[in-house]
């Protein structure tokens, strides 16, 4: 027979700060990844396919050596990993809203901003692991990378990823009970952002309207900054532009996301 046992009660649980709450949410989100790290590696399939199939086409069409083409292409692939990985992350929240998991965290004494920030920060860890794997895979084919540039590049990706992940959570909160709506928004936004960033193909010869669209796409600046950073050019205007775009994305994403979480 099952019998409930219980140690004597303590006093009312103590107040915790936003930083502690964020850390606790982050640890909860990371535990499944740490328990099963191979799940994070499965998400590498898509970027590796792009690298393996699209890379040779680029090399052939550009007429440049493979190493030089990869120098241009790999940073774009890393931004693509950040884009696809963080854009889909709201789907996890949708799943937790459909069960009672999200509701439980709303009744727990956690600050609403910590609920959002802890989740968004979680996206950084698999992002960096995947980025390292892609760089390592590319090294034998002539790809070279500046270590300080790589580290700064990961910081840039992390800032952008937190912001874009927060936006994905905001969309999920707005699409409660309507998964299809989340995926329509996801598909409608993600492909134009990708194509109009020049991460896969250069936009130098694009029509004027595409260049205008690319100029207002924050991802264009992040991609350009990553290319400069990986090449070891750390203080260029493109790098500053990339950080500015990532920080603005993060601020907007966190503001909208925290607002959505407070209303959840």
């Amino acid at each position: 027979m099952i019998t409930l046992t219980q140690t004597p009660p303590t006093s009312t649980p103590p107040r915790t700060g936003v930083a502690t709450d964020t850390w606790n949410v982050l640890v909860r989100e990371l535990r499944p990844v740490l328990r099963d790290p191979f799940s994070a590696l499965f998400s590498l399939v898509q970027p590796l396919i792009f690298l393996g199939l699209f890379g040779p086409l680029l090399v052939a069409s550009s007429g440049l050596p493979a190493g030089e083409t990869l120098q241009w292409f790999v940073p774009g692939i890393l931004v693509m990993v950040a884009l696809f990985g963080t854009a889909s992350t709201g789907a996890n929240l949708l799943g937790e809203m459909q069960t009672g998991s999200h509701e439980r965290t709303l009744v727990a004494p956690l600050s609403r901003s910590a609920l959002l920030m802890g989740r968004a920060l979680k996206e950084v860890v698999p992002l960096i692991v995947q980025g390292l794997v892609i760089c390592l895979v590319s090294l034998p084919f002539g790809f070279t990378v500046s270590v300080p540039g790589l580290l700064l590049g990961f910081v840039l990706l992390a800032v952008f990823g937190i912001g874009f992940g927060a936006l994905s959570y905001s969309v999920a909160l707005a699409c409660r009970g309507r998964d299809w709506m989340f995926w329509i928004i996801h598909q409608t936004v993600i492909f134009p952002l990708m194509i109009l960033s020049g991460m896969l193909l250069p936009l130098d010869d694009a029509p004027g309207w595409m260049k205008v669209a690319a100029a207002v796409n924050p991802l264009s600046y992040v991609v350009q900054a990553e290319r400069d950073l990986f090449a070891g050019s750390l203080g260029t205007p493109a790098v500053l532009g990339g950080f500015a775009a990532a920080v603005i994305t993060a601020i907007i994403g966190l503001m909208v996301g925290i607002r959505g979480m407070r209303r959840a």
Partner: protein
Amino acid sequence: MGSYAGGMTDTQNTQSLINARGLGKTFAAKGGAVDAVSNLNLEVRRGELVAFLGPNGAGKTTTLRLLTTLLTPSSGEATVAGCSISRDPAGVRRRIGYIGQGNSAGHNQRVRDELLSQGAFYGLTRRDTAVRADELLESLDLGSLAHRQVIGLSGGQKRRLDIALGLIHRPELLFLDEPSTGLDPQSRANLWKHIVDLRDDFGTTIFLTTHYLDEADQLAERVLVMDHGEVIADDSPAALKSRLAGDRITVTFDSAADARAALRHTGGETSGAIVTLTAEAAAAGERAVPQLVRALDAAGLAPVAITHRQPTLDDVFLNLTGRSLREEGQSAPASNPQEVAA
């Protein structure tokens, strides 16, 4: 087994843990605003096990969500565990436990991990959380599943994990929203035992919503009946049944003509060959049956069968509203109302 109910003073025992005054919630819906809860006055004292009973859509879950700070009230105010739901929702959250309708553990999480996270959310130390998690895993028969992924658990196992998550911080007040919905009879009986144990052995104050009549009848010492957003009755199940329903006696005859003839001697209502005595007529309960037989015999009427039964909470609801709770409970309105700003 530890018990802390006995250590409380009389003052603490009678202290009010929930106190709502004029609480209301209005949602915007097609065709205008809907008052999901209106002018709710409610007091729950420490150590009580209170069931909130009503059909789907009556306002039970909305009330629960107001009291647990998941919704903000459109009108009125409530104090829960000494904290205002409007001015100090964080204080309320720190002091209560909540077990919602859905499965509250993340599907990709491991069972013990989820308990460790929940303990951290409530500010427990790592050591205390680990001790408490293992204690709950053991007592809720989840010990062998500690390292399993939640997605692989059965419905009953997930529900037991929900209970463990709601209890990790040893709350003084526990809210349960339709706790046994979707459970098989055995799991439901187990769950009821856990709930009663919590109140009896640990003095936990429990507030649960249900649309199952037997659940409210068997578990609660006090039942609040809710309909259309208002509390329409508040008493113990026995008192409600005695006051608002009374025993039921059904007399079956060979023909409808005999049933109509019997009505002159028995009172009540006929339906075909059956006479059902009203609450008033059957007030004397089983002692009325011999008198009834003698009266019918004297009138030359021979019933085929006479049955006597205790009233149910459905009879109470029927008398209060003219509708059956059983039928209402089966036709839940599917609406997705929008909250109206307070």
